[in-house]
């Protein structure tokens, strides 16, 4: 069981969400989370001035599945078709640290006690980082909803925040899972099909190519960044082993290696710093990329919905033409065509707004993260430097 209190990391966690909570009547945060086996229970705390809520201040406990449910209902709501629906947070993944922990347990015999403890600490730190990250992405999801004028008034969202019982969302069964998968397939096939539809608005045309391109790139960058941070972590782990071995050698109280004791200490510190560099990189850069990858996916979905509407509109036009030709059901067809046009126009309008704001948001988020990352890198490098400096001086003096 792991329980964390997030107060210390508040500002850090907000970094990706770009201060969505400013001046909103709805303030949401996740101050606490509890991990039981593979279930994570998030405590969601809401502060509000809205009348639609019974109390101004309340907390509920939610699971990851509840978030998925909320997201799905939002996606399914027709009215939100013209909006970028915030991407659903990824499923908490504690598998990799767990697996590592398991491996470590197996390899215990081959390591010195000290080394083992250090490795364990390192893994615990990693586990904690994953945990924090999970909480963070869930929080951001809610904050984005709360900061959006339309979503914040959504009934389901309010229920999600307020209902103090277990939501008891039914888990998706296998059929539904398959159905979802199938739906996805249809969607992507459809995407290909309607891509042939001639775009009427240049803005969307541009936006579409840009997003497609950008999505590919950012996906690539995310993968690469992940790889990079992973190897950085490996590097940090190596320092653990080296320092442990140096300590054992120094423990042989061989005079030649006395100096090594302090080097081993330095190694530990270097390792800690390297690990921090790696995790900060992960947090600031990789997470940023990952988040925007999902966000772009959401934007793409919006475009898809719009394109769908466009296709529908054109189909209805065709149908209207046919009806006129046959002078049969003209009124119905006309109505349908009007509906489609309306829907499409509405989608286009709100989509344009959404995409523009998305762009601005992305730039701001990138800026913030990049600055923070650069600052952190400098900070770590500096502390690393002073450490090395001290060690060199110590070595040279004795």
């Amino acid at each position, binding site marked *: 069981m792991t329980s964390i209190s997030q107060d210390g990391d508040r500002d850090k966690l907000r970094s990706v969400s770009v201060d969505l909570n400013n001046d909103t009547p709805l303030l949401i945060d996740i101050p606490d989370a509890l991990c039981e086996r593979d279930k994570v229970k998030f405590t969601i705390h809401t502060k509000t001035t809205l009348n639609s809520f019974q109390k101004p201040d309340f907390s509920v406990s939610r699971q990851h599945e509840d978030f998925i449910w909320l997201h799905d209902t939002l996606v399914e709501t027709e009215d939100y078709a013209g909006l970028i629906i915030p991407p659903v947070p990824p499923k908490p993944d504690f598998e990799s640290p767990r697996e590592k922990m398991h491996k470590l347990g197996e390899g215990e015999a081959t390591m010195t006690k000290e080394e083992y403890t250090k490795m364990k600490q390192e893994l615990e730190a990693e586990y904690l980082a994953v945990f924090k990250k999970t909480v963070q992405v869930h929080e951001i999801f809610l904050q984005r909803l709360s900061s959006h004028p339309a979503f914040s008034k959504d009934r389901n969202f309010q229920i999600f925040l307020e209902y103090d019982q277990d939501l008891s969302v039914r888990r998706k069964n296998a059929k539904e899972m398959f159905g979802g998968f199938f739906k996805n397939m249809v969607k992507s096939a459809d995407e290909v099909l309607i891509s042939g539809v001639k775009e009427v608005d240049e803005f969307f045309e541009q936006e579409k190519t*840009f997003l497609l*391109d*950008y999505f590919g*790139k*950012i996906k*690539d*960058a995310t*993968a*690469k*960044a992940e*790889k*990079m941070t*992973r*190897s*950085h972590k*490996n*590097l940090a782990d*190596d*320092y653990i*082993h*080296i320092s442990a*071995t*140096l300590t*054992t*050698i120094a423990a*042989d109280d*061989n*005079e*030649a*290696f006395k*100096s*090594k004791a302090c*080097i081993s200490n*330095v190694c530990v510190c*270097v390792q800690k710093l390297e690990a921090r560099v790696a995790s900060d990189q992960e947090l600031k850069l990789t997470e940023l990329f990952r988040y925007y990858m999902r966000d772009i996916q959401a934007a793409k979905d919006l475009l898809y919905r719009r394109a769908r509407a466009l296709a529908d509109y054109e189909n209805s036009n065709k149908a209207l033409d046919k009806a006129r030709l046959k002078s049969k059901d003209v009124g119905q067809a006309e109505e349908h065509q009007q509906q489609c046009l309306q829907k499409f126009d509405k989608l286009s309008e709100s989509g344009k707004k959404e995409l523009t704001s998305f*762009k601005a948001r992305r*730039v701001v988020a*990138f*800026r913030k993260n*990049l*600055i923070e990352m*650069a*600052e952190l*890198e*400098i900070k770590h*490098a*500096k502390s*690393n*430097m002073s450490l*090395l*400096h001290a*060690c*060199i001086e110590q*070595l*040279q003096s004795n």
Partner: protein
Amino acid sequence: MDPPLPVSTSEPDKDIFSGPRAEPLNNPLSETAAEQLKAVSGASSKAKGDVPVEEAGSEEPDDLFSDPLGESGAELETHTSNAPLLDFSEEPPKSDPIKKAASADDYIKKPQKDIFEESTEDGVKAAAAHVGSVAAEKKVLHTDLFGDGVDDDEDKDDLFKTPPGAMMKKPQASLFRAEPDDIFPEAKTEAKPATKASAKQPNNAPTDLFTEEPFTVMPAARAAVKPAAIPSANTSSKTNGLHSDEEDLFAEATVELSLDSPRNDRRKRDAMKPSEPVPCPSTSTSSSKPQPKKLEELEEEEKEDKFDLNISVTNPEKVGDGMNAYMAYRVSTQTTLSMFRSKQLTVRRRFSDFLGLYEKLSEKHSPNGYIVPPAPEKSILGMTKVKVGKEDLSSDEFVERRRAALERYLQRVVSHPSLLQDPDVREFLEKEELPRAVSTQALSGAGFLKMINKATDAVSKMTIKMNESDVWFEEKLQEVESEDQQLRKLHGMVESLVNHRKELSVNTAVFAKSVAMLGSSEDNTALSRALSQLAEVEDRIEQLHQDQAANDFFIFAELLADYIRLLGAVRACFDQRMKAWQRWQDGQNMLQKKREAEAKLLWANKPEKLQQAKDEIGEWEGRVSQYERDFDRVSATVRKEVMRFEKEKTRDFKKQIIKYLQSLLHSEQQLIKYWEAFLPEAKAIA
């Protein structure tokens, strides 16, 4: 001349020479002119009661050399204790043969000529004329000299036994007389073979002479080597008063010489010539007053010596084609050590030459318990790649790695005081062409033999059960073994560090490219700029990681690899000690058997065989004691070597680790620079 010159202070000199010059013939000993003169100087120093001379001459040298020479033999010991001045002058010639081995003749002649030229300036031409003739005479009368030396030795011994009262005057005089014959011939024996230019002899001669106490004599030699490098002119210019006296002295000497018999003449020369190296060391020693600090000084000097000899291996170059191709390296030596032909030496050597050097050295020195630094290992795979001639990164890296390893190897060899003296080392550094080292090939017959030898060694090692008499060795061996293990482990880890860092560097490069792509498709100009900047930063960081990985490897991992191999050599020297012990034990067993056989014969009453058995016992007793001595000697050497190794190791590790940390520091600095440059770019995103 010997006696005056050690006394570098100008005033006592004057006393010595100005005072008694008139009464050489009155000297009680009055043998030859040369002797007289010396006696005179000795006597004069006594007569005048020159305290500085006394002290400088008697006590200081005593401290100086009694230590190192203490083991050299009974005779020398009497000298040191009773006749400090003798030692003093004796010492430099002792060191002479060593440094002169290569160019003994030159060495002697040069300074000598200088001096004589000085004297000719003053119009004493006869002296100069003698220089040449003396060189010729040297050879002819060489044997005579030895005889003389022996005679004089006896003489001197007698003299020492004279009552103390007389000793004050006489022994001193006689010592001076004895010393040229006694000692300088010795120097000459070294010099002679050198002039004959028979390749090996000169080299062997000094080693033979001093093999017994390489350690004790060597430091002394070193002490002498350094100051000797200073031109003798220095001494005279340094001490103004001395200069004119010298002239006087020579003038007098030459006058006498011209009257004297050639033999004396020659002797005189002998006395003068080797005296040349004397002034320098003596001035240096007498000027550095605190003589008891001798050992520390020597140590310091040893350290300094290391800087005097700078070896670098550069310019790896492929020679030939196909499977016969090999890499040649340029080995350049920079040195101020006089044992080398010149200050700058450059030769080209191939890898197998290095291996050959190692083979020779280990054959010669490791049975004596020395730690012979191992040469880098052969790498058939790496070399084949180079041979195939692909100019790819890995083969470049291989060559560079090997070059660095070879350089470190040579530096280790020359930093070893006794290996430095090895003629093979010098030959390796100096000689233009080396005979091809064949036995180093892995697949040759010699290689096969080596493998068999190793296998038998391993077997015998397992079977030998040594009951250790000295706890120190036991503990050390254990220490070495556990250290070896730890170092191996550490080495593995550092290797994985290197690999991970390389991986990181590759990943960073890929990421940089990906970010650059992202930047190119970003439609916000400022952000796009920032992203491409980020890509650039990552690119640089990639380079940084790559460099750091190289540093990890070359500074840290290679250091560990070297020491793992060195620890192998340390273990080998422990093995050698064990072998010596085994020989001794076997000898004892044999002796025991022989004795038993004798007892049996005695009992069986077979007198005819008894004699033979007795002879055998005698022979074996001799051998056993020889083996025991060997064992003790090897033990002592091993102990000394291990101490030295540890000191070296500490220093090496400290140096390398500081270097490594500095490289880390440097990368961090660069990192800060890069990110700081990036920061405004990120802030500029609007």
